[in-house]
C-alpha cells in the first residue's frame, strides 16, 4: 500500500517535470532557433529544403565583429541603458516617495499626469524631440539616448516604485521619525531597502524597454558613434548584400543575452518584486 503510494507520488513528480520541461522548451525554442541560425552558413538559411543536421559556422560571428563595429554598438547599448536606468531611479524614487507619502493638493492629478505621458504614441513626439536634441547639440550622442530612454521609461518606473512604497506600513516611518530620523534619512535607510525588490523589478523592465527601443534611437543616432544593438540589426536588412539573416540572428541573440543574464542573476529579487505588490505578507 505504502509502496504503491510512493510509486504514484514518483510518477506524479515525473509528470510535473515533463510538463515543466516541455513548457521551458517551448519558451526556449525561438531563442535556440535564432542562435542556430546565427551559427550556420548563410547559404543554409535561405535554402527552401529543411536541413536537419546544419553545418556549424562562425561566419556571421566573424562578420559582425570584423566587418562591423559590434563592440561599439554593444558598449553604446549598455551605457545608454544603464545611464537611463540610473537617471530614472534618481528621479523616480523621490517622485514616488512624494506621491505615496505626502498629502498635497493635486497629488493624484500629478500622479495621473506622469502616467499619461506613457499613453502618447511615440511618433507624435518624434519630430519635436529631434529638434529639441538638435538645438541642444545632443544628436548622435550616448547622452541623448540615455535621456530619451529615461524619459520614455520614467512614468512607469515611478508608478511601479510608488505602488511598492504604498505597501510599506506607515508605522515604519513613524518609528523612524520618533527615533530621530529626517525625511531623506527615512527614504534612504528605511524605505529604499524595504522596496529593493520593487526597484530591481522596475529597473529590469526599464532595461528591457530600453534595449528594444528603435524609433528614437534611429532618429537620434545617425553614425556608429551612437548606434545601439537594435539599430545595428537594421544594418543587416538592406544594401547590396541583401538580408543577412545569420548576422541578424546573432546580433539579436547578443542583444537578448545581457538582459537574460541580469534576470538570471537577480531572479530571487525579481520574483519577489513581481509578487510583492500583489499579496500582503
Amino acid at each position, binding site marked *: 500500500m505504502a509502496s504503491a503510494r510512493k510509486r504514484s507520488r514518483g510518477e506524479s513528480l515525473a509528470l510535473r517535470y515533463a510538463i515543466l520541461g516541455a513548457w521551458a522548451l517551448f519558451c526556449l525554442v525561438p531563442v535556440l532557433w535564432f542562435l542556430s541560425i546565427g551559427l550556420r552558413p548563410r547559404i543554409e538559411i535561405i535554402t527552401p529544403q529543411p536541413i536537419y543536421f546544419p553545418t556549424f559556422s562562425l561566419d556571421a560571428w566573424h562578420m559582425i565583429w570584423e566587418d562591423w563595429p559590434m563592440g561599439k554598438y554593444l558598449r553604446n547599448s549598455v551605457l545608454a541603458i544603464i545611464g537611463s536606468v540610473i537617471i530614472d531611479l534618481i528621479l523616480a524614487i523621490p517622485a514616488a516617495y512624494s506621491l505615496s507619502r505626502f498629502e498635497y493638493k493635486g497629488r493624484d492629478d500629478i500622479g495621473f499626469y506622469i502616467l499619461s505621458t506613457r499613453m502618447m504614441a511615440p511618433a507624435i513626439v518624434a519630430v519635436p524631440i529631434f529638434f529639441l536634441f538638435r538645438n541642444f547639440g545632443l544628436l548622435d550622442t550616448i547622452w541623448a539616448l540615455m535621456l530619451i530612454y529615461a524619459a520614455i521609461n520614467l512614468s512607469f518606473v515611478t508608478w511601479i516604485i510608488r505602488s511598492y512604497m504604498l505597501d510599506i506600513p506607515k508605522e515604519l516611518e513613524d518609528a523612524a521619525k*520618533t527615533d530621530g530620523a529626517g525625511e531623506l534619512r527615512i527614504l534612504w535607510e528605511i524605505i529604499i531597502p524595504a522596496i529593493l525588490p520593487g526597484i530591481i523589478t522596475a529597473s529590469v523592465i526599464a532595461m528591457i524597454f530600453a534595449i528594444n527601443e528603435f524609433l528614437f534611437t534611429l532618429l537620434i543616432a545617425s553614425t556608429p558613434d551612437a548606434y545601439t544593438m537594435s539599430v545595428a540589426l537594421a544594418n543587416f536588412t538592406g544594401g547590396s548584400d541583401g538580408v543577412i539573416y545569420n548576422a541578424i540572428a546573432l546580433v539579436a541573440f547578443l542583444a537578448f543575452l545581457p538582459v537574460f543574464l541580469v534576470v538570471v542573476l537577480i531572479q530571487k529579487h525579481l520574483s519577489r518584486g513581481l509578487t510583492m505588490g500583489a499579496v500582503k505578507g
Partner: protein
Amino acid sequence: MARIQLNNIQKRWGAIWGVRDVNLDIADEEFVVFLGPSGCGKTTTMRMIAGLEEPSEGEIVMDSEVMNEIDARDRDVAMVFQGYALYPNMTIYENIRFPLRMRGVPKEQHDTLIKRAAGLVELTDYLDRKPSALSGGQRQRAALARAIVRQPHVFLMDEPLSNLDAKLRQHMRVQIKHIQRELKITTVYVTHDQIEAMTLADRIVIMDKGAIQQIGTPDEIYNDPANTFVANFIGAPPMNLIAGVMEQGTFTAPGVRVDGLPAKHDGKVTLGVRPEDCTVTADGGHLSGSVYGVEPTGDMTYLTIKVGDKLIEVKAHRDYRADLNSDASVGFDPKRIYIFDTASGQRLR
C-alpha cells in the same frame, strides 16, 4: 524624566472630530494608560504627544516647553508600535542602534548601550538576526529595546501587546512594568484591554468618542465609576446596568426591587451592580428571574439570569449549578450599588 501637560487639546479632520477638549497633567515618572474602544481618540492623542499628528487646537507642554511646533524627531520621546515597526532590512542590533545613530550618541557608547537594552528585554542572543527570523514576542521585545536604548524623556506605547497570545501578553506586561519602574521614565500607554490598563497604570484615562470620560487610579476607576460608560467598560463581565425608577429610596424595575437607597435621587435612574457583588439566594433577593446560562470556569461559575428582556450576570461559587429556565433569586451588596442618571448616564452620588 518629564511632565506632560495636555491643555484643551482638540483634533479635527474637517467635520470629523478625533479628540475633544482633552485636559491632562501627567506627572514625572508616572505610568498613564489611555483606555477606550476603537476610535475613541486614544491613539490620536498619543500621536499628538509624539509629534506625529498636529493638534487642531490646544497646547502640548513637556517640562514647561510648548511642543506644538516641534518635530517628532526633535521631541525626546520613544514610541513602541502595535505592529512592532522594526526595520526589516536591519538586524536586531542595527534596529536598536538606529535611534543612537540618529541622535548622535558617540559611536563608542553604542555597543554597551545596545547590549544593556537587549539584556533588559532578554534578547541578547538574537542581536544578529533579522526581524523576520524572530517570533512575535521577540519582535515586540526588540521594539521595546529600541525604545529604551537611549533613555528618552517619555515612552509612548501604542497597543504594544495586542498581537501577542494571552500567556506572552501577561509575561510582557510584567516586563514592561518592571522596566518602567527601573528606568523611571514617564510612560503613556494606549490599549483597549482593561486588564492591561488595570495592571500597568498608575492612572487610567478612559476615553470615548474623543473625550475623556474619567481619570483615576485603577481602584478609583473600578470602584467609583463616573458614568455608565466607565461602569460598563471596566470589569469582565461588565457591571449590570438596570434602568428603572427611584421613589423615596426604593428602586424598582421589572423583576427588581431594592429598598433603603438614598432618597435624594427620585426619578428615572439606572442601577449598577457588578457581577461579583451579586449573591445567589434561595429567595427574597433583590432580583428574581430565570436561569439563562451557567458557565463554569473552574475557579467560579458565571451565571446569566434573564429578568424581563434583560440579562444579568452573576459571579457565583465555583460549585454552583442550576437547570436552565429554573427560577433564580439574587441579592445585591448594598454598599456596592451605584446609581446613575438614566438620561445623562452620569453617576448620582
